[in-house]
């Protein structure tokens, strides 16, 4: 069991990063972005296609990140242009449609799990140390360090820079932010593009471990949303912890033969439990207001 939990932590860092990207998009532009991992996967597959063609891996990484940033920025611009005054549910529904369209396009372009699995570069595969018989590769430390770095970096950027303060103002009162001279549409598109690029980098980091076909990587959105829910779509450190918790739960489920095949259900169970837990007060209030 301990081995499985430690093994789960190796995925947890990646999950935490994806959850952070969901939280950032929600906090800064008030959109639950279901298309996020599909955009990241698109950029990652552009990169791996270019490396397969013999392009230098770092140049391919740059082009892949730029592709994801551009795609995400275009989606953000469309939402700002046509859905700015709409409710959060409507915007989320638009991103669900984009997710479906992008996944279909990605599978068409890059193939499914039988034909389209690619060899992603894995520069951090060397073992660092062994705990309880489990070899911990460098990628675990890199993804955890990346997650902590993003949590701290974003926290500092939001509170210590003029740009961060403007982003906070924008997320709190979009209309007022505009009338005080904050270029809300431009900043929102910038956030979308930045999150797109970061998601692509995370997908490249986790692809060797979590799946290397387009459908599996795009489908990581369910895990990312479960992780974001742990942090209530707001709290960055809690989201970080959420990623590790979901990773451990998956690890534990894989250690029991009887439930191993249901491992993919873990994110949905986490979402259900959190929804139930957070609705307790409403149920209590309703019962006592009668």
């Amino acid at each position, binding site marked *: 069991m301990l081995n499985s939990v430690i093994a789960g932590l190796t995925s947890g860092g990646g999950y935490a990063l994806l959850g952070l990207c969901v939280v950032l998009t929600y906090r800064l532009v008030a959109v639950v972005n279901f298309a996020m991992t599909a955009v990241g996967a698109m950029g990652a597959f552009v990169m791996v296609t270019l490396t397969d063609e013999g392009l230098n891996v770092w140049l391919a990484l740059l082009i892949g990140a730029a592709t994801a940033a551009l795609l995400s920025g275009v989606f953000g611009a469309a939402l700002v242009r046509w859905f700015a005054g709409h409710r959060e549910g409507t915007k989320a529904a638009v991103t669900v449609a984009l997710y479906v369209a992008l996944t279909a396009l990605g599978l068409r372009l890059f193939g499914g799990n039988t034909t389209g699995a690619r060899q992603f570069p894995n520069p951090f595969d060397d073992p660092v140390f062994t705990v309880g018989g489990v070899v911990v590769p460098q990628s675990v430390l890199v993804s955890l360090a990346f997650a902590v770095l993003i949590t701290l970096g974003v926290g500092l950027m939001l509170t210590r820079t003029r740009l961060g303060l403007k982003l*906070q*103002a924008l997320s709190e009162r979009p*209309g*007022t932010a*505009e*009338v*005080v001279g904050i270029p809300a*549409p431009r900043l929102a598109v910038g956030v979308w593009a930045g999150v797109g690029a970061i998601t692509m980098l995370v997908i490249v980091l986790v692809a060797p471990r979590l799946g290397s076909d387009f459908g599996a990587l795009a489908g990581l959105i369910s895990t990312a949303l479960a992780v974001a829910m742990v942090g209530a779509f707001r709290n960055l450190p809690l989201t970080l912890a959420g990623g590790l918790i979901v990773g451990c739960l998956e690890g534990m489920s894989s250690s029991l033969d009887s439930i191993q095949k249901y491992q993919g259900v873990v994110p949905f169970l986490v979402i259900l439990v959190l929804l139930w837990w957070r609705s307790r007060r409403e149920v209590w209030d309703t019962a006592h207001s009668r």
Partner: protein
Amino acid sequence: MTAPALALEGVAVNRAEVPVVHDVSLEAAPGAVTVVLGANGAGKTTLMDGIAGLAPVKSGTIRLDGTAIEKLQPYKRARAGLGYVEQARTTFRTLTVEQNLIVSQSADGDIATVYKLFPELEKRRTLQAGYLSGGEQQMLVLGRALVSAPKVVLIDEMSLGLAPLVVRRLMSTVGELAGMGIAVLLIEQFANLALDVGTHAYVLRKGGVVFSGPCEELRGDDERLHRLYFGGPPLSAAGTDAADESELE
């Protein structure tokens, strides 16, 4: 005669696709307070939102220092010199007092001027705006407009929910803004307080202008104001044209 800092001509504004303001023409001179009065639902806030870009202008022109701005996005209007003090004390509650000012500051804006005008804010510069009293929050919103170095400031019902003493203090600050050469367009529920500080007044009824004239014509004349707000038999007072229950000059 001084050219108006803000000039509206035949402006119509919709709210959720429903026409609320129609054919409004008005001017606000630099260094003066222009008052817009009217009953609840007359279209005052919709008019302000239309000028600031928060509600769509369906027709007409809005000129800021002679430049048409009605097609610009709200932030571009702000950068062109339009400050907007919205209703309901719209501070950024999670930011501190100073951070609220920093996000609005333009290259020519000076936070020290705001602190000079409102020393209370300087004492609370590191406090989150959500913890300020109602009066202090309104001071902050006024200060936020000032720190963008505006040519025109729109002020919408800043006295809402505030104690009379605080309202008087804020109203004298409005006069000081005009003293700095800024054109102030003021909507206010306490008509006589606004008329005391203003030079020219407009009265809106059902989305259209029914009176335009010097503030002194309306100052203290509650009966006439009431008639302008809600309609009634035409007046034949000296110095005004009475026609169709309106007193447009």
